[in-house]
């Protein structure tokens, strides 16, 4: 297996140009929204609004302004599949369509997916959705086809500020930590890395430098694996089945005894 590869996204240098979104759409030949009809969100400059089956990159615009709008700031973050080391989608996929590649990334094979949508319910980040053109669940592949040819993913290649950086996870983690230290020295004490260590789902192969709480960016503070409920859910179900069986047995056994008594009398 090749060394794990991924993205390090430094949100502090993102300028919200959406070049990553465009590059992703172009390379992966993703259709436009609503057949290309201009659709505006109406309450934000962010008109992409979400990651889904036809948006595998999404630059989030977090607009933090006071009510008078005299003071405020923009938080910009190019969101994408996290290619989790412990991937919830891969874990539940019943068709085997979701696989881990030699680059430690997570890819949905569109020809194997049947659109059951279990992965959509399982993803703790809300990344996956159905692509209406294929009728299958789709998300970022970390440009698996480009990686196989020794190329960089389209989004990081297009990023003009190096907010999105591509490389080996080991190298990216070192680079990201240096940037956090630099920001701390410059007075930005809120800077920290999200998903750069094993604490979050064994590590996120697409991790972030953030300057506010994860939930401000729409990221769960403590994402979990769906199978956390498997053992307890199964045991409680068995308990339910045993209780129902017991009630049924007693109900019909008693009836047997009653019928026997009636016959004797």
């Amino acid at each position, binding site marked *: 297996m090749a060394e794990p590869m991924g993205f390090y996204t430094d949100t502090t240098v993102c300028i919200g140009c959406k070049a990553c979104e465009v590059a992703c759409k172009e390379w992966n030949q993703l259709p436009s929204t609503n057949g290309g009809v201009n659709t505006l969100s109406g309450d934000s400059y962010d008109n992409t609004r979400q990651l889904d089956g036809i948006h595998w990159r999404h630059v989030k615009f977090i607009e933090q302004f006071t009510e008078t709008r005299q003071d405020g700031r923009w938080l910009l973050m190019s969101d994408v599949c996290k290619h989790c080391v412990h991937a919830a989608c891969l874990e539940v996929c019943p068709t085997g369509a979701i696989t881990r590649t030699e680059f430690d990334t997570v890819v949905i094979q569109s020809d194997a997916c049947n659109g059951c949508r279990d992965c959509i*319910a399982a993803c703790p980040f809300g990344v996956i959705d159905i692509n209406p053109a294929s009728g299958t669940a789709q998300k970022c592949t970390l440009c698996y086809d480009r990686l196989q040819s020794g190329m960089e993913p389209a989004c990081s290649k297009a990023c003009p500020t190096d907010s999105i950086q591509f490389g080996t996870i080991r190298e990216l983690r070192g680079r990201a930590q240096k940037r956090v230290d630099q920001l701390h020295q410059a007075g930005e004490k809120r800077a920290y890395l999200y998903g750069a260590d094993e604490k979050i789902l064994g590590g996120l192969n697409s991790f972030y430098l953030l300057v506010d709480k994860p*939930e401000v960016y729409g990221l769960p*503070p403590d994402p979990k694996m769906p199978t956390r*409920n498997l053992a307890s859910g*199964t045991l409680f179900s068995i308990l339910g089945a045993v209780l129902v069986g017991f009630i049924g047995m007693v109900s*019909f056994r008693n009836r047997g005894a009653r019928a026997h008594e009636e016959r004797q009398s």
Partner: protein
Amino acid sequence: MNGVPSSTYFTVSPEWGWLITLYFFFGGLAGGAYFLAALIDFFGQPEDRPLARLGYYISFPCLIISGFLLIIDLYRPLRFWHMLIESNTFQPMFKYWSPMSVGSWALLIFGIFSFLSFLGALAESDRLRWSAAGRLRPPGAMATVIAIVGGLCGLYVAGYTGVLLAVTNRPIWSDTPLLGMLFVVSAASTSAALMILLAQRAARAVPGLAALHRMELCVLGLELIVLIAVVISLGPVLRAWLNLWGLLLGTIIVLGMLFPIVLNWRKNWLGNLNTTATAALVLIGGFLLRIVIVFSSEGV
């Protein structure tokens, strides 16, 4: 957590809507009715056999409906077999840790047992002129094995759907481990209710109906306890039900659970209609319960 009660609130909906809700209901009936029929076969009296047959008559058609609902809910229905066979390698596809994977196999295997018992029931009542099929009804050794394995598969089919919901990251569904238990118990109550309703339409009196009615009410009491446990186990996520869904859930508890139990005490309230009304309320309540669980999470 910035006003959000659980990490599950950062996920998106898989849009499992009406088809899946209907599947949860019919799958519960298919599994529950088979289990009750097997139970009656083993613990009932010889004169209860028509009631057991009724369970098998309900189970198989409900299972066919279930399979149909599941397939048409897929975005690529013709690829339904990918659940069982890996499409790239043509090797069997099985993940014991994925409820949807195990459930797909369980439905297939249960389908075989449900079909055999359906044939046996038809042969026993002379609706099918095939003497060999008569051996599919207990007490013969083969029929006993069929009823035991089929009954266990039926319970699995009735309950795994709740575990499937729990093994996600969606609000409500994965915020409690008790949905599987709730679905098993609810499958038993709704199946008993449907069997009672259909048995009452029979021309002749069906023995064992009183026992089934007794069982229905006991299971309903258990269901109420499990539902209360579900509500408590949700903790802060319970606020997802502080709306019209909560109101509907309250209505289900009052009219679909408490009222049928009270009707059993006050037998003269509705006279001859008492048992029928109880069964109908339990059946409708069971369906509405699944609507609340599926759609209230979709709305978060």
